[in-house]
Each structure stands twice: as C-alpha cells, then as structure tokens.
C-alpha cells in the first residue's frame, strides 16, 4: 500500500473533518450547543452518530476475528445489538431520557443523575468515573487502529497515534457535538460501504449464503487447528549415534486418532545411526504452514542439542525433515515433538468444538466466553454515557422514533455482516493456502489484504479508521463534558457563567485528548485489560440508578449512590480478584478458581446487585422534600 496515497487521503479526511469542526464552531453559541448540539439533531444524524459511536473499530475487526474463532454463535450478539441496542434502548430509554433531560436541563448522564437526585457530588463522582475509564477506552481504540495502519502502511505507530489524536481532537474541541455528529454521519457512510462490499464479496467468493455456511460447517477441528495428541507414538524417543545411515522406515501408527504423529525416523531405540542422520517426522494431518505468528505451531527439543536445525516440509505440510549440525559419535540423544498445531493453526478447532456454524456445548468454556461477550456488550449498551448523549441531542421525540429504523439497518449492516463473515474467513484461508495470523484481530485484515483488490484495501482501512475516529470523538466529547461540566463546573467551581463553563469544558477536552495521546503512546498492559470490559463496567455502575431514575419516582439520592457505587466496586473487585481473563494478569491468579464462577462476567451479578442496592437504599433512606419537588418536575413531560 502506497504511503503517499495514505498521506493524501488522510489529509483530505482531516480537511473535511476540520471544515465540519469549523461549521460546528460557528453554530456553537451556548453550552447546550456544545454538549447536546442544541438539542436539534434529526433522525438520520442521530441514527448514524449512535451507530458509529456504538460500533468501534474493535467491534468491526476484533469481533469479526472473534467470530472466526468461536463461530457464528456470536450472532446472538448481533441480535442483542439491534434488539437491546436499538429497540429497547430508544423506546424504553431514549424517549424518557430526552424528556427528563429537558425537564432537568441536563446535558450529560452525570448531570441528569445530579439534577434528579439534587446532588452535585453524585454528578461529580459519576463524571470522574466516566472520564477515567473513557480515557483508557479511547486510548485502546487508538492503539488498535494505529497498529493496523502501522502493519498496512508501514507508518510508525507513534506517528499514527499522533495524527489520529490530533485530527479528532481538532474538530471535536472546536466544533463540539455538532462537529462530532456531522462527522459521524460521514464516517458511518464509509463504514457501511466498506462492510457491505466486504460481506457481499466474501459470500460471492464462497458461492452464496447457503454454500458458504455449509463450507464453514464442513470444516473439521483438524482442518482448523487442534494441538498435537501426545503419546500415540513414542514421544519423546531416543536413539544413539554410530556410523550407519538409515533409510526412511515407515512404521505407520494405526492407533493415531485426532491429530497425531504418524511415524518417526530414526525410530525409538535405534542405535548406531550416522552423525548426519536427518530426523523425519510425519503427521496424520497437515501441520499449520510456516508462520511465526503461531508460537506453538511446531516445536521440538533435542537433548543434547547439536544446533543448526533447519526444517524442510513436504508440499502438504504433513512431513518434516529436520537437518542439524552433526551429532556427536557414540552419544545417546532424546528427541521430543513438544507442540504442533494442525490445519491452519486457528484456535477455532478447539474453541468451536461443534463446528463453526453450531452453538458450543452448554456451559463449556467457549459457551461461557460467548455468553460473556453477548451480555457484556449486548446489555451494557443501555448505560453507555456516550450513547445517552445522542438521545439528549434529538430535536424531538419524533426524530428519535424516526431514528429507530435507520439505526436498526445501520447496526444490522455493521454487526450482522462483521459477525457473519468472521467464520467464513477460515474457509477462505484454507482455500487460499493462508495461515491463521496469530491473533483474532488480524484475521479480517489478512483476508482483505491478501484476497481483495488494492482499492478495496484502501476503502476498508478508511472504513475502520472512521469506526475508530467516530467512537473516539464521542468518548472524548463525553469525557470532556464529564470533567468540564460535571467535575469542574458543578463540583469545583460552582456558579460559574455558561461562557466560562464552555471554556473549561474545551480545555478539559484538550487535556483528555492529550492524556489519551500519552497513554496510547506508552500503553500500560492494564489499560488494554480493563478497557475491554468498559461496557460491562458502565452498565454495572449506571444502569440501575439510570433505569430507576427514569421509571421509579421513589428512587432516592441514597439509593442512587448505593446502586452506583455498589455496582462499580463490585465490578472492579470481580475483574481484579476473580475474572479469569483479568485477575491472573493483575494479581497473579483468580481468588475463585472454580470453573464457571471465574468465567462469569460481573454483569450477571453486578447489575442485579446494583438494582437491589438502589431499591433497598431508596426504601431505607427516603427522598427529602427538595427531591420530591424535583421528581414532580422531572416527570412533568413523561
């Protein structure tokens, strides 16, 4: 890919967005303009902005890669993305949020909570939680996209991060939510075009929907990649050196099942072999063709080690001849195949045990992984502060209603397509002699760069860049508003003017953009770990107080505090101490090592717990007079 083309298109990209930023700046006169685009957005912009914020580059590339490993069962997430993320979100949350936001004169989720429960401290604390985790989440988004561009264009990672952050920061700080939402509309169109073409091309390559799914269903675990079955022939085995060169002896292993060694030469116990005797190992299935990306593809140990090893594989990758520096004469050697992976080396062989187009066995580890993803993201969407702002920006309830079909179609064309093509990539890799690229997020880029024309590679990269930029700009905007409006204006500098407040928010947004840049340039490992659970954390923290605030008039300030902090602390604790993916990386090992429990996403306990705490504390500590007055005001339009 030509780096000059990249530079030209990036410049055009930046110019268009900066121009929109300028238009946004001209239109931004009040705080409402900056925070909620003057509450004047129409249905198409709302739908595209909501979708583009919701669907990040991680969702496009990361989740389709995950689908290539876990199979089409991840389509349940696509279903929840539309059912919960659009229908439930807009109908049960969007309309009420907009109305209550208007009544309470709130422009952010923390401000809604603060105004509804008459507590600036609640607003400041929730704003702080949102800002901290959004900075980490935004840096993870940039990390992913910069890595992709580095691989494709060869542009340095640092330069990519700086360019992307500066471009987004520029139009966001200048143009506020107007610029963010207008750019989202353009970015959304690019994302739609890229994903739609990619999906159509991949299904066409495989002969249509039915044949493509059948081809994926026909793949065996051995085709995809399963680890070598140990113990079917003598492994490790021993031989000693002398002067005899032996011919290949085919001691075919009749008991080999699954993926196993078929025969070895020299055989176990052979003595007097020549010092330059090659080691020959044959397998009953293809070993993943040579790729440095899969570390356990083929590993062997020779003790003592003569060194100078070279591998020579046959055409089918079923037999390898290992040459080496000459053995010592009169010495006994032990040789072991320590690891090998069959097929294309994909973890799909073990992670989709019932096949790529079937559900995994109930409560099996892959089932739990999918369940975690589905509910973490599928339910978590309801309490994402950056999405809630979209409801507040609607010019009318009608605009929100009209956004539903556009939103539904947008999410269908993004997630349904991305999740459907993931598993099919395995078929394409096998048909085209490609190997699993090592991590799921590299699967789609591999297919695009190897099998599609260069113009499409270009379009696809900019579609992914759009997805990253749109999510990041929404996160920056929300985080900036949280710090500027919720923490500084309402917490630290009470009673400052609207103009000053806007200035503070712009500065806060700049600080956040800068902080993200610093983190993305030197990302600590813990950022990537915790940010992958951002949706779940936000849901456990805010879903209960937010839902009950909208629907239960008796929700009290203390109830909101208890639900929010209880959900937050429980979720953080679960990720740090128990959850199998995070706990080992943070404290070394999970405190609860019992299966199912340590794989259970905190959302399953955190959300009910948060609801329970909000309810119990609202009953225990009732609303005061002021709160009761606010409730009447908050519900006056509902």
């Amino acid at each position, binding site marked *: 890919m030509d780096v000059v083309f990249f530079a030209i298109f990036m410049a055009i990209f930046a110019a268009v967005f900066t121009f929109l930023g300028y238009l946004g700046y001209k239109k931004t006169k009040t705080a409402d303009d900056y925070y909620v685009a003057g509450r004047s957005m129409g249905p198409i912009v709302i739908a595209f902005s909501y979708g583009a914020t919701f669907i990040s580059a991680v969702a496009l590339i990361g989740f389709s890669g995950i689908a290539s490993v876990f*199979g*089409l*069962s991840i*389509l*349940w997430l*696509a*279903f929840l993305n*539309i*059912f919960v993320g*659009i*229908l439930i979100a807009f109908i049960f949350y969007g309309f009420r949020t907009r109305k209550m936001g208007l009544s309470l004169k709130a422009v952010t989720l923390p401000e809604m909570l603060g105004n509804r429960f008459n507590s600036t401290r609640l607003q400041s604390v929730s704003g702080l939680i949102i800002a901290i985790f959004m900075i980490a989440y935004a840096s993870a988004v940039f990390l992913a996209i910069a890595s992709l561009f580095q691989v494709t264009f060869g542009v340095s990672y640092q330069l990519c991060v700086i360019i992307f952050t500066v471009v987004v920061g520029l139009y966001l700080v200048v143009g506020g939510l107007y610029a963010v939402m207008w750019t989202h509309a353009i970015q959304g169109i690019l994302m739609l075009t890229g994903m739609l073409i990619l999906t159509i091309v991949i299904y066409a390559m495989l002969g249509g*929907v*039915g*044949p*493509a*799914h*059948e*081809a*994926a*269903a026909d793949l065996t675990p051995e085709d995809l990649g399963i680890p070598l079955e140990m113990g079917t022939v003598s492994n490790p085995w021993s031989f000693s050196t002398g002067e005899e060169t032996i011919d290949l002896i085919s001691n075919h292993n009749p008991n080999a099942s699954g993926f196993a060694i078929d025969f070895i030469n020299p055989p176990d116990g052979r003595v007097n072999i020549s010092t330059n005797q090659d080691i020959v190992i044959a397998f009953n299935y293809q070993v993943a063709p040579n790729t440095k990306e899969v570390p356990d593809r083929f590993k062997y140990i020779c003790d003592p080690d003569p060194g100078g090893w070279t591998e020579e594989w046959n055409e089918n990758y079923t037999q390898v001849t290992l040459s080496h520096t000459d053995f010592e004469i009169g010495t006994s050697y032990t040789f072991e195949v320590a690891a090998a992976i069959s097929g294309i080396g994909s973890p799909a062989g073990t992670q989709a045990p*019932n*096949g790529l*187009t*079937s*559900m995994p066995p109930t409560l099996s580890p892959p089932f739990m992984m999918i369940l975690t993803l589905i509910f973490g993201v599928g339910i978590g969407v309801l309490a994402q502060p950056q999405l809630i702002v979209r409801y507040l920006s609607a010019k*009318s*309830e*009608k605009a929100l*209603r*009209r956004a*539903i*079909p*556009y*939103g*539904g*179609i947008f*999410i*269908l064309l993004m997630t*349904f397509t991305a999740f*459907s093509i993931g598993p099919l990539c395995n078929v394409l890799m096998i048909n085209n002699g490609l190997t699993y690229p090592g991590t799921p997020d590299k699967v789609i880029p591999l297919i695009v760069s190897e099998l599609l024309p260069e113009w499409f590679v270009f379009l696809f990269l900019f579609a992914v860049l759009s997805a990253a930029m749109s999510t990041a700009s929404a996160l920056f905007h929300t985080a900036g508003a949280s710090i500027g409006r919720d923490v500084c204006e309402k917490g630290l500098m009470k009673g400052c003017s609207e103009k000053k407040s806007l200035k503070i928010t712009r500065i806060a947004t700049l600080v956040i953009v800068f902080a993200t840049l610093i983190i993305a340039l030197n990302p600590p490992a813990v950022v990537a770990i915790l940010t992958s659970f951002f949706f779940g954390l936000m849901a456990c923290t805010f879903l209960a107080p937010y839902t009950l605030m909208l629907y239960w008039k008796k929700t009290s300030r203390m109830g909101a505090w208890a639900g929010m902090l209880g959900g937050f602390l429980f979720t953080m604790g679960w990720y740090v101490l128990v959850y199998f993916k995070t706990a080992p990386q943070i404290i070394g090992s999970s405190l609860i090592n019992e299966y199912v429990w340590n794989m259970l996403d905190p959302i399953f306990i955190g959300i009910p717990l948060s609801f329970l705490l909000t309810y119990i504390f609202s009953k225990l500590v009732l609303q005061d007079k002021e709160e009761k007055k606010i409730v009447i005001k908050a519900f006056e339009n509902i």
Partner: protein
Amino acid sequence: MILGMDVGVFTAWILTILTAIACVIYGIYYEYLKKDEEEKTPVKKDKKQKKGGK
C-alpha cells in the same frame, strides 16, 4: 441444519434479521400510520387561536 447452521445459530441469524425488520416496521408505523402527539398539540392550539380570533 438450516442454511448450513444449527438450530441455535439459525435462531440468532433469523432473529437478527427480523429485529431489524421490526425496527423498519416501527418507523413506518409511526411515520405513516400513527399521528404523533407532538403533531397533535400545535393543531389544537391553532384551533383555539382561530376561535379567539388571534
């Protein structure tokens, strides 16, 4: 197997498409078949205004 998918996966597949269709039907219903409250309110005001001669 339906379209190469088992029942669990096919259910998710078809539900995703049906939910997207439901979104479209919802939009059509509110756009063309149901008059929304925000549209009704100004009409009432207009009638009152006409009666009052303003």
